[in-house]
């Protein structure tokens, strides 16, 4: 019952604490909201910077027109493909390797585990990496978005720790029944580690979706441009952007008020890039804390 005796100090502390956190939360969320209200508002008002706290002249033509821009649907497809395929490959490899590294009977297990984990702490630098990618034929090649990301030491550590925490007897009894390593992995281990797999999947998907520098380094052919890369170009190349808009709109435009402008295109593409994150994020949020805690054990 002591908790009910709020002193003045307590009240003041709470008031300040709550206010600071609420303000900071608003700062974190506002940019998302600001961009959104601008994309659905009259482009004339947006262009003048007159949309500040709530939308005016709501319309959806920005989204419709932007999705018609040449190259954008393709970039979206590339981004989507690398995210889906890359995530699936990374999750599978991390789970499988995490499982294999728990097998004490593996030849040279300690050595190979270190061989993988140590790569977390060093890299040759971006130029030698670029040369290697070039020599491997991974410039202007979709595989460059997948292959280098398959083996991720941090995820392997997370999963290995998790596999070690589930009772060994389950695997042993399956082994007595004649199950091989693959069967044990797919039938017994895999279903038991889904919480950690969800964490790894989200991390990996977000990384794939957000990746930008690999396109910058490796891709000169616009076929392989990702949404992030296209957005970056839109942010920087105002003149190019203006001409793209002009050519995509043609003479039969709707009302002038909602004609696409460089600003409206930038903001709309940004919203398209951020939407998948906003969609998956709330659902998987609860896994993060758990995942990061397990990682903290050895991360």
């Amino acid at each position, binding site marked *: 019952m002591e908790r009910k005796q709020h002193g003045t100090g307590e009240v003041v502390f709470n008031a300040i*604490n709550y206010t600071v956190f609420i303000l900071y939360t608003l700062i974190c969320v506002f940019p998302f909201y600001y961009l959104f209200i601008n994309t659905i508002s009259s482009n004339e008002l947006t262009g003048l910077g007159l949309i500040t706290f709530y939308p005016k002249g709501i319309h959806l033509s920005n989204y419709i027109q932007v999705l018609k821009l040449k190259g954008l649907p393709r970039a979206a497809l590339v981004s989507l493909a690398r995210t889906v395929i890359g995530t699936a490959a990374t999750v599978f490899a991390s789970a499988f390797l995490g499982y294999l590294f728990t097998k004490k009977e593996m030849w040279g297990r300690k050595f190979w585990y270190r061989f993988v984990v140590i790569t977390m702490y060093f890299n*040759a630098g971006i130029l*030698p990496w670029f040369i290697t990618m070039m020599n491997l034929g991974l410039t202007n090649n979709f595989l460059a978005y997948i292959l280098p990301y398959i083996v991720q030491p941090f995820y392997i550590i997370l999963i290995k720790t998790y596999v070690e925490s589930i009772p060994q007897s389950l695997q042993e009894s399956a082994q007595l029944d004649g199950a091989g390593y693959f069967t044990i992995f797919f039938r017994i281990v895999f279903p038991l580690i889904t919480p950690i797999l969800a964490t790894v999947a989200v991390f990996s998907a977000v990384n794939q979706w957000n990746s930008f520098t690999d396109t910058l380094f490796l891709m000169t052919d616009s076929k392989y441009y990702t949404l992030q890369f296209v957005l970056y170009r839109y942010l920087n190349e105002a003149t190019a952007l203006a001409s793209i808009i002009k050519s995509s709109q043609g003479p039969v435009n709707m009302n002038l008020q909602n004609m696409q402008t460089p600003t409206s295109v930038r903001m709309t593409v940004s919203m398209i890039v951020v939407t998948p994150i906003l969609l998956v994020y709330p659902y998987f949020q609860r896994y993060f804390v758990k995942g990061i805690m397990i990682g*903290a054990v050895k991360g």
Partner: protein
Amino acid sequence: MYYDRRKRIVIKDKYRLFLMALPFLVLTFLFSYLPLHGWVYAFYNYRPGIPLRQNEFVGFYWFKSIVSNPTQTAEVLRVLRNTFAMSTLGLLTSVLPVIFAVFLSEIRVDWLRKSVQVLTTLPNFISWVLVYSFAFALFSTNTGFVNRILIQLGVIDRGINFLASNKHVWLTMILWSTWKSLGWNAIMYLAAITSIDPELYEAARVDGAGRFSMIWHITVPGIMPTYFVLLLLQIANFINNGMEQYYVFQNAINKDYIEVLDLYVYNIGMIGTSFSFATAVSALKSLVSVFLLMFANGLSKLVRGETII
């Protein structure tokens, strides 16, 4: 290897496990170890597109030129200054997530605490390109949100070009990275706080401890081990700022202050023509960062009796 009754080749378990891992070990070799071979480019006068054999071998020329060529020395020093400035600011702000977590856990209203946690973590999951896009929308000269509000409030009469300015670049960069990562970094500490034994708080309350003394004597010591591990990792990464954030925010005006090592290597190696010089700088950087990691690891062993790697 031996034959079983059905004359099929049976590989011993220990090798079979290794063979199952082998494809992934090959990938690790290709993408993490093979690039180390690229350091040889630092010993040549390399021009991209021409096979290495046809380039002139120059030995340690590029390494020496870092200290012997005054223009290049000045450039490297400028870049090191920026790198050190950003990393030092990063180290100084590393207590912010701790403070954030401590005070957030003092919020007793469940839904509010959870909402704050969820919403402040969100920026961590967007790309730097998007952060830049936000910066573009909020801070552009005439139409940006911040300038509009400041003009309306009468603080300024003309828009300030926040993005193309060489003043306070380090400060704005640390502010953006704080905005992006503060909530996320606090999660680790929040997790550490929830694992503190509640009986400690009970006992302290019985002894008449107030809110602040409980924070100071129980919560803070409870999360210090986590803080030290993360701090040491940050020290190990002192010269690795990465380039993405600085790449997207760089422009002709702020370049002198925003170029950190990684970005500099990119700018002179990929955009410019000094591929070999850039490789030399980047190889040195990798060596220094391995050294820093070993230093941080040794420090950890000394202070906490545990290693971080």
